[in-house]
């Protein structure tokens, strides 16, 4: 009994400590004098690694998600004779929810785990320590570019996902199921608002991108320098990021619908 209370207390202290370390890491990345001349090319490399290389999976899943939402929506809407409302249905569900959330989950799986494993391995093979020996700040050289790269990549990926998913819905709704193309687009334009729907989705994706890349970088940076440690760090990155994205999505939606 007594040992269990001790364990619980230790677990609480460990969790708090980890949160604190994550906060310190974030602070050290954000509040330091930026070196644009050196940092910019490094950030571009990371946008390439985290954004451009994730593009394929984002485009393919966007296309299929748009297509499947259109197919499901059509068969339900048709029962009520409202198949013309397919455009708004797909556009609203994709721009508000599916786009940011699915992109963030894929991003955590594709880019987040890679970042965590890379930083973890750099730490395990003492590349970070040797950088410090050469008076190169690893925060400067390794951590910050990865963080900024993820922060910029995620909203861009979400916007591309949204457009591709709506195009997929157009393929299914208009080209395959034979809805009227003009009605599809004009009904969509009538009910989708740029600021309320599209921009709120993009704001969500900015928040998700920030959280996912923060978790990835921190998990990599704090991983025990063993092969099991790196494996654990990648797993935790994906699990924590997905949970954080889904939880935050609920909070953000409540905030946006409730006009906070």
């Amino acid at each position, binding site marked *: 009994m007594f040992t269990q209370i001790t364990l619980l207390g230790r677990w609480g202290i460990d969790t708090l400590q980890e949160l604190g370390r994550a906060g310190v890491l974030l602070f050290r990345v954000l509040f330091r004098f930026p070196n644009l001349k050196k940092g910019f*090319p490094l950030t*571009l*490399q990371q*946008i*390439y690694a985290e*954004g*451009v290389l994730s*593009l394929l999976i984002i485009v393919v899943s966007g296309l299929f998600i748009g297509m499947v939402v259109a197919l499901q929506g059509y068969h339900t809407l048709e029962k009520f004779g409202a198949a013309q409302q397919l455009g708004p249905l797909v*556009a609203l569900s994709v*721009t508000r929810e599916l786009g940011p959330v699915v992109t963030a989950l894929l991003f955590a799986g594709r880019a987040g785990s890679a970042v965590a494993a890379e930083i973890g391995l750099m730490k395990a093979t003492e590349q970070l320590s040797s950088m410090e020996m050469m008076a190169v700040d690893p925060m400067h050289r390794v951590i910050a570019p990865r963080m900024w790269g993820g922060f910029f990549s995620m909203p*861009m990926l979400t*916007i*591309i996902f*949204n*457009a*591709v998913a*709506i195009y997929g819905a157009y393929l299914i709704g208009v080209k395959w199921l034979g809805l009227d193309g003009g009605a599809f*687009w004009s009904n*969509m*334009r*009538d009910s*989708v*608002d*740029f600021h309320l*729907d*599209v921009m709120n989705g993009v704001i969500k994706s900015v928040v998700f991108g920030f959280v996912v890349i923060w978790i990835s970088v921190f998990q990599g940076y704090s991983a025990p320098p063993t092969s099991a440690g790196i494996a654990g760090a990648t797993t935790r990155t994906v699990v924590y990021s997905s949970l954080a994205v889904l939880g935050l999505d609920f909070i953000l939606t409540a905030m946006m619908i409730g006009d906070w």
Partner: protein
Amino acid sequence: MLSQRTIESFVGLFLLMTIIALSVLAFKVSGLTSFFQPIGYNVSAEFDEIGQLKVRSPVKIGGVVVGEVSSISLDPVSFKAIVKMHIDSNYKEIPNDSSAGILTAGLLGDNYIAINPMYSQSFLKNGDTLTDTHSAMILEKLIGQMIYKLENGGKNSDKSDKGDADSSHSKDINHEKN
């Protein structure tokens, strides 16, 4: 490892794709118009009751959209709703004695402002006010009035009314079957 130049061009391509996707979302999907407000002029009107009219609701003449509602406010003295409309400059020659009414698109649709042109030879200018206005019809109020009338007056004619309604209903059904 790719050279920095290749990486930069890939990232540039990525950015370009994002911009294209964003403009598709803005103009094709959400019909964004408020970035560049179309050139036109502003007209205001006072209503007793505007119902569910919102900012960006359409302004129509004969069903054709000629502008949109740009702001809604309340006159602190007369307690009337002041609706400001932005009308496209293509429609310059709207007579200034026209009337404005708030109608509903379909039974449960959104409200819009319909302008009925009259015959004056002088036209609406920027800052003009439409004085002849018709308020929005509130469905609940109408139902309330109807129930009130049915309870107070139409007790004798009630049965015949119902009969009529039934027969017309069955006619409709027959019609559909044919």
